[in-house]
């Protein structure tokens, strides 16, 4: 079975982004970029399934600018087999990404597609669910455990009340949550090996997908600043201030 993993190039999670002064977007000049952390978890999961003999190939796909090849390359260095870069400059929305992924699925015929639950830049939390709808497959979002068993997957999901376990018939779409695994670091030999692994280049137009955005971004503004407060020196002072100043006791 082939596992397809969608990996997005995003701003590194340690970076606190700033809004551009003209409020047209966030300033990404000279900002460190990395693979979306949930997608690293997705790659790790696919590799573990392959290592356990449940899959025989792990293919990574990214939709984005030429630099997204670096993101694919870092997943190949973790151990994935090959990559597909669907080149697209400019803003691309989850619905369009899902349509591109559907077109890639039509070519690659994976038995399982793993995505992150959320891209930490747009914070949409949509793409996997949309993809599952477009291909008509069952979905298990926010996975904390994935057990593959022949034609089925048993997936445990992190939900608001606790945990829920579903059984899906493959092919299926799974999105990762934080507790699914801890992604490995790429070893130096694997980084070298990854340089020779193939990355195929495609375009949305070549796949017959219209990626024009449906949402117009009118403005990107900084959030309302929160005024820094005071330091108190003792528990009695804290209690007194909460009671008499903040009025919340």
């Amino acid at each position, binding site marked *: 079975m082939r596992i397809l993993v969608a990996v997005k190039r995003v701003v590194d999670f340690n970076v606190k982004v700033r809004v551009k002064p003209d409020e047209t977007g*966030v300033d990404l000049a000279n900002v460190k970029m990395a693979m979306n952390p949930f997608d690293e978890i997705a790659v790790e999961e696919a590799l573990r399934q392959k290592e356990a003999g449940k899959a025989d190939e792990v293919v990574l796909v990214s939709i984005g600018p030429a630099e997204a090849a670096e993101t694919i390359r870092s997943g190949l260095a973790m151990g994935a087999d090959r990559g597909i870069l669907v080149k697209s400059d400019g803003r691309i929305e989850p619905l369009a990404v899902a349509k591109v992924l559907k077109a890639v699925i039509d070519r690659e015929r994976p038995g399982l597609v793993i995505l992150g639950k959320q891209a930490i830049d747009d914070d949409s939390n949509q793409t996997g669910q*949309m993809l*599952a709808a477009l291909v008509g497959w069952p979905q298990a*979002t926010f996975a904390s455990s994935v057990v593959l068993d022949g034609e089925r997957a048993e997936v445990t999901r992190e939900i608001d009340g*606790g945990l829920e*376990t579903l059984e899906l018939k493959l092919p299926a779409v799974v999105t990762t949550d*934080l507790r699914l695994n801890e992604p490995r670091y790429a070893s130096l030999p694997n980084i070298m090996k990854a340089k020779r692994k193939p990355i195929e280049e495609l375009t949305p137009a070549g796949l017959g997908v219209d990626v024009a955005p449906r949402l117009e971004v*009118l403005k*990107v503004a900084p959030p309302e600043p929160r005024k*820094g407060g005071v330091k108190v020196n003792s528990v009695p002072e804290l209690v007194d201030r909460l009671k008499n100043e903040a009025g919340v006791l």
Partner: protein
Amino acid sequence: MTTLLVAEHDNTALAEPSLRALAAARQLGSDVHALVAGRDCRAAAEAAALQDGVTKVLLADGEELDHQLAEPMAELIVSLAGDYGAIVAAATAAGKNLMPRVAALLDVMQVSDITRVVAPDTFERPIYAGNAIETVKSSDSKLVITVRASAFGPGATGVAPAPVVDVAPPRASANSHFVRAVIAQSARPELNAARIVISGGRGLQSADNFNKYLAPLADKLNAAIGASRAAVDAGYAANNLQVGQTGKIVAPDRDIACGISGAIQHLAGMKNSKVIVAINKDPEAPIFAVADYGLVGDLFEILPQLTAAL
């Protein structure tokens, strides 16, 4: 055109986030119908009918909708969508699971996690862990929206109940099945509805401490307990307690952060609380930059004192 609110419920009452999503739905300016779907959920439909601003309740009740799996739920909503200009749900785990599936079937780009209705087709939503607020205008002919519940107030119950109309449940899902759920039982208020939240981080050092130091204070204040990702990852707290960019978003009257450094991903989940109190032994911890009241010191000494002083 009318707005459809996809309501979350426990078979008897609507979930608090759905009541807040209703407030957002009403701001779209049209009538709001509520969809209550599940198995044996008529009581919840009757509760929905009493909400101020709900003019009709659609009740889809059947074993096909047991556990409200995304696949049959999406099929149901799409079959009803023709009558509606917008479909709205709270951005809870259930809403996030379901609504993009609906949106894609309708060929609509969902607007996720809105925090403000600027106009019926224009919304504010946080991006980059809340470090930027995006204003987006949709060009889709139908809208699919999830609502950040903490950004909207809960509604009130109305005077006269709205009519409850039965709709046929969809086919059961052929390819996905519910196996089991492990739901945390707690007598404390829900994180997303509590007026006071006490959150613990890695500074608590163990699951035993997490409970021993936070529970007495939470009980005294009738507060919900939350956690940082580090505390959840380390097994001090259950996953459903995680507050943050990728966990739950809370905005209580008071948030007390104990042994939490204040990473941007954590702040994203609590920085809109009215009053933030931080207890941390590191005076340079970033949490102090957002805290109204900061107390530098060892939480293992401070928390028992605070519990005793209240």
